[in-house]
C-alpha cells in the first residue's frame, strides 16, 4: 500500500489526506484529490511495560483504546472522537486533546516517533519508541497538529500511561470569574485535579489519581459529588465533553475555540462560553465578527480558531489566527522543506500554503 501512496504523491496532484473523515470540518476546507489512508491500519507493537504503542495511521482510535484498556492503560491526552471511525493518523494530524490536557499533556507531549512519506515520496522515520530521544530535530512533535500538510503519516508511536486508579467528579455553583480564580489557585496546589469544565454557573471538577489522594482532595475541596456511592466513577460527563456531544456543542451557531492563558479574565465577548483546561480553553458560541473574537483572544495573549461554522465564515476568516509575518514566512519554508511541490492538504492549515 505504501507503493500506492508513493505513486499518488509522485503523480504531483494536490492530495487531500483522509482517515475516517470525522474531522473534515476542522481547519480550512479540504482541497485536492482524496487520498484514503484508512486501509493502512493495524497495531504494529504494543508493550505495556515499555509504555508505548505503535500503530499504522488508519488504525481506529477505538481499537487502540480497547487494546490499552485491556492492560489498564490509556492515552492520557484523551483525543476527541468526532466519529466512530476516528483514526490514529487523524488524531495526530489534528493535534487535538481532550479534557485531561491541562494536567496530562497534549498529543504532542506523547509523541515518541513517526514514520511518514514526505512530498517527494521518501519514507522517513523520526524519533522511536523510547521515552527519551534527542537525536535529530524533534520532527515527531512537529507533525502533531500539522494537519497533514508536512507529510503523509504512516505510523505513529505514542507514550501510554496507566489509567488513574481512582476518579471522582465534584460540582460547584460558581460564577465564571470566581470559577477561574478558584481553578488557578487550586492548580497551584498539589491536588489531583485532572480536568475541569465550567458552563452556566456550574463548575465541574474531575479528580484522578491514587485512591487516597482523590479521597483527601474530595474532603478538602467540598462541592457536590457526582456519582452514587464514592467508588463507582461516572465518567459519562467527561466522555460527552471529550467528544463534544453535550448540548453546548449542538446547533448551528459558529463554534470558536479560544486558547488563552488560564488566568485570562472573563472575556467580554457575546455568546455562551464553556471553559475547560483550568481556564486555558474557552469555547464560544458566537456570531460576533471574527476580528472581534480574534482581537479579544490576542489581547490576553492567546489565539482564536473557528472550530465549526458554515463554510462561508471559515473561508472569509480563515480557520486559524493569522501569524505574524516573520513566522508565516518561516511556515512557508518549513512546508517547502517537507513538501516542496505543495502536494499535501493545500490550504488546510493556512490558505497561503
Amino acid at each position, binding site marked *: 500500500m505504501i507503493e500506492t501512496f508513493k505513486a499518488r504523491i509522485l503523480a504531483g496532484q494536490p492530495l487531500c489526506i483522509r482517515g475516517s473523515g470525522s474531522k473534515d470540518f476542522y481547519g480550512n476546507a479540504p482541497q485536492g484529490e482524496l487520498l484514503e489512508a484508512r486501509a493502512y491500519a493495524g497495531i504494529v507493537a504494543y508493550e505495556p511495560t515499555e509504555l508505548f504503542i505503535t500503530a499504522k495511521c488508519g488504525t481506529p482510535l477505538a481499537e487502540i483504546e480497547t487494546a490499552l484498556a485491556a492492560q489498564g492503560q490509556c492515552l492520557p491526552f484523551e483525543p476527541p472522537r468526532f466519529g466512530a471511525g476516528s483514526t490514529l493518523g487523524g488524531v495526530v494530524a489534528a493535534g487535538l486533546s481532550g479534557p485531561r490536557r491541562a494536567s496530562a499533556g*497534549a498529543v504532542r507531549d506523547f509523541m515518541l516517533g513517526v514514520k511518514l512519506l514526505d512530498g517527494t515520496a521518501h519514507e522517513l522515520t523520526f524519533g522511536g519508541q523510547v521515552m527519551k530521544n534527542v537525536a535529530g530535530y524533534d*520532527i515527531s512533535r512537529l507533525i502533531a497538529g500539522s494537519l497533514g500538510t508536512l507529510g503523509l503519516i504512516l505510523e505513529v508511536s505514542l507514550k501510554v500511561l496507566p489509567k488513574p486508579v481512582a476518579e471522582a467528579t465534584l460540582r460547584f455553583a460558581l460564577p465564571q470569574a470566581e470559577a477561574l480564580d478558584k481553578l488557578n489557585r487550586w492548580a497551584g496546589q498539589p491536588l489531583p485535579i485532572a480536568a475541569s469544565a465550567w458552563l452556566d454557573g456550574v463548575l465541574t471538577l474531575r479528580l484522578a489519581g491514587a485512591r487516597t489522594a482523590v479521597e483527601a482532595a474530595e474532603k478538602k475541596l467540598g462541592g457536590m459529588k457526582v456519582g452514587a456511592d464514592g467508588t463507582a466513577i461516572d465518567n459519562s460527563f467527561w466522555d460527552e465533553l471529550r467528544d463534544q456531544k453535550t448540548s453546548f456543542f449542538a446547533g448551528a451557531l459558529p463554534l470558536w475555540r479560544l486558547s488563552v492563558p488560564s488566568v485570562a479574565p472573563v472575556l467580554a465577548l457575546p455568546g455562551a462560553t464553556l471553559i475547560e483546561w483550568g481556564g486555558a480553553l474557552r469555547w464560544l458560541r458566537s456570531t460576533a465578527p471574527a476580528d472581534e473574537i480574534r482581537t479579544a483572544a490576542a489581547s490576553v495573549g492567546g489565539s482564536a480558531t473557528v472550530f465549526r461554522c458554515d463554510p462561508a465564515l471559515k473561508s472569509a476568516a480563515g480557520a486559524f489566527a493569522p501569524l505574524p509575518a516573520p513566522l508565516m514566512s518561516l511556515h512557508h519554508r518549513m512546508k517547502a522543506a517537507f513538501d516542496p511541490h505543495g502536494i499535501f492538504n493545500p490550504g488546510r492549515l493556512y490558505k497561503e500554503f
Partner: protein
Amino acid sequence: MNSRTHSHENDQDFSDVDCAAVLAALAAVLPAASLLAGQEELKPYECDGLSAYRRLPLAVALPENEAQVVAVLQACHRLGVPVVARGAGTGLSGGALPHPHGVVLALAKMKHLLRLDPVARLAVVQPGVRNLAISEAAAPHGLYYAPDPSSQIACTIGGNIAENAGGVHCLKYGLTVHNVLRVRGVTIAGEILEFGNAALDAPGYDLLALMIGSEGLLAVVTEVTVKLIPKPEVARVIMASFDEVIKAGAAVAEIIAAGIIPAGLEMMDKAATAAVEPFVKAGYDLNAEAILLAESDGTPEEVEEEIAAMRAVLEKSGATDIRVSRDDAERLRFWAGRKAAFPAVGRISPDYYCMDGTIPRKRLAEMLTAIAAMEKKYRLRCANVFHAGDGNLHPLIMYDANVPGELERTEAFGVEILDLSVKLGGTITGEHGVGFEKVGSMCTQFSSDELTAFHRVKAAFDPQGLLNPDKAVPTLHRCAEFGRMHVHQGALKHPELERF
C-alpha cells in the same frame, strides 16, 4: 588532558573568515567588557562539559540584552561567520565547542528572572538563568520547575532548551519540552521570533517543540516562559538491592506493569556504587550487583500507598534488601550518590567519558552484558548509571587521556555502545544531545533521506549554515567518510553491497 580536534574535510569551510573584520564589527555593537578576543580570555571557552574536545574561537561575545544578541547575529550573518551559542558550558556532547573560525555567543550575562507569576504558574526568564535558580525563586509559592538535570546547580535554561534536558524525574514530570510554554529567539539573520505563548497551544506548526532540543542550530534563545508546578507535599524513596542486574531490570518492568509511575526510578551497578559510596557515604549496599532507587511523591496518603505497592513488587522481584527513606535528609542522601555519580567516577579515574544511549528497558540485560564484554575488549572499566524508568543509560567509561591510545579506545568503546543502542531499538542520545561528539553516530541512526530532511529544516532557519556548524546533524559526505551505515532494526540496509 590531551586535546584533540577532528578535521572534517567535507564540512563547510570558514577558513577565509576575516578575524579583524569580525572583531571590528562586534566591537561596534558591544560594550568593551562584552567582547573577549585575547588568548587568555578565550581559554575558559575552549570546551564545554566534554573536555576531551577543545578549540579556541576567534572571539567571545557576551551580550547584555536581546538587542545586542540581534546586533551580534546580524554582524556575523553579514560577514558569514559561524556562531556557537553557549549557556553555562555544562553540556556533555560538545554542543558548545567553539568553531575555530567562529564567535562564541555566551549568554551568561542575560541571567535575569523577568517575571514569576505564582497564580498563572509560570516564570519568564532570560536564557542565562540557572535551572535551579528558577525552582529556588518559585519555592516560596510552593512551586518548582520540574526538569532537574544533574548539573542543575550550574546549567542554564537556554542550554536546557538546546538539549531538551531531562533529569531523574522525567518519567513522571517530563523533559524540558513538556515544561516550557514559550521560547523567544533570534535567527542568524537577526529576526526575532516567538514560539508558543502563555496559553497551552498556539496556532501553526509546533515550532516550539522543534526549537527544544535543536542544539543551537536553528535560533538563539533570548527569553523562555517555563511552567511551574506545585511541589509535592511529601517524597520518599525506596532503595532496593539486587544480586543480579537482570533481576533489577525485571523489577523496573514489574513496577510499571503494576500501574505505578514512580517520580524517579534509577539504577546503579556495582561499579557505580563502589565509586560513589566512599565519596558520598549514601549508605549503598556495596555487595549488591545493582541497586534501584524508586521515588514516590504526592500527598502523604498517596505516597504511603505507592511505597507499599512498590515494596511489594520489589520483594516479589527478588530484592535482597529494601530500605525506605525515613525523612527528607535520608531521601536526599540516597539521591546524593546518584547525583554525584559523575564526579565520583571522576575521583577514581583520571578521565571518564559519559555515554547517553536510550534503549527499551527490557533490553537492559543484553546491553549490560555487551558492555561487560566491551570492557574486556577495550581494556577499560565502565560504571553504569541508568535512568531505568525511561531507559536512558549512562555508561561512564574510565580512561586516562595521558596514556597513549586510551582516548581512542574509549571513543571506539562509546561508539560501539551507541551502535548497539540503535540496534536494540533505542537511540544514540537520550538527553545530552548529539553535539560534536556523536555526529558520526547519527549516520547509524538515520538514513540519508532523513539526514537530508534535517538539513532542509536547518536551511529553513539558517540557509547559510552559520549557527553551530559541524554539530548535531552530519553531512552525507561525512557519513560516507566515517564509513558508518544506517542500521535499521538490527539489519543493515542494502546487505548485498560490499562494506568497507
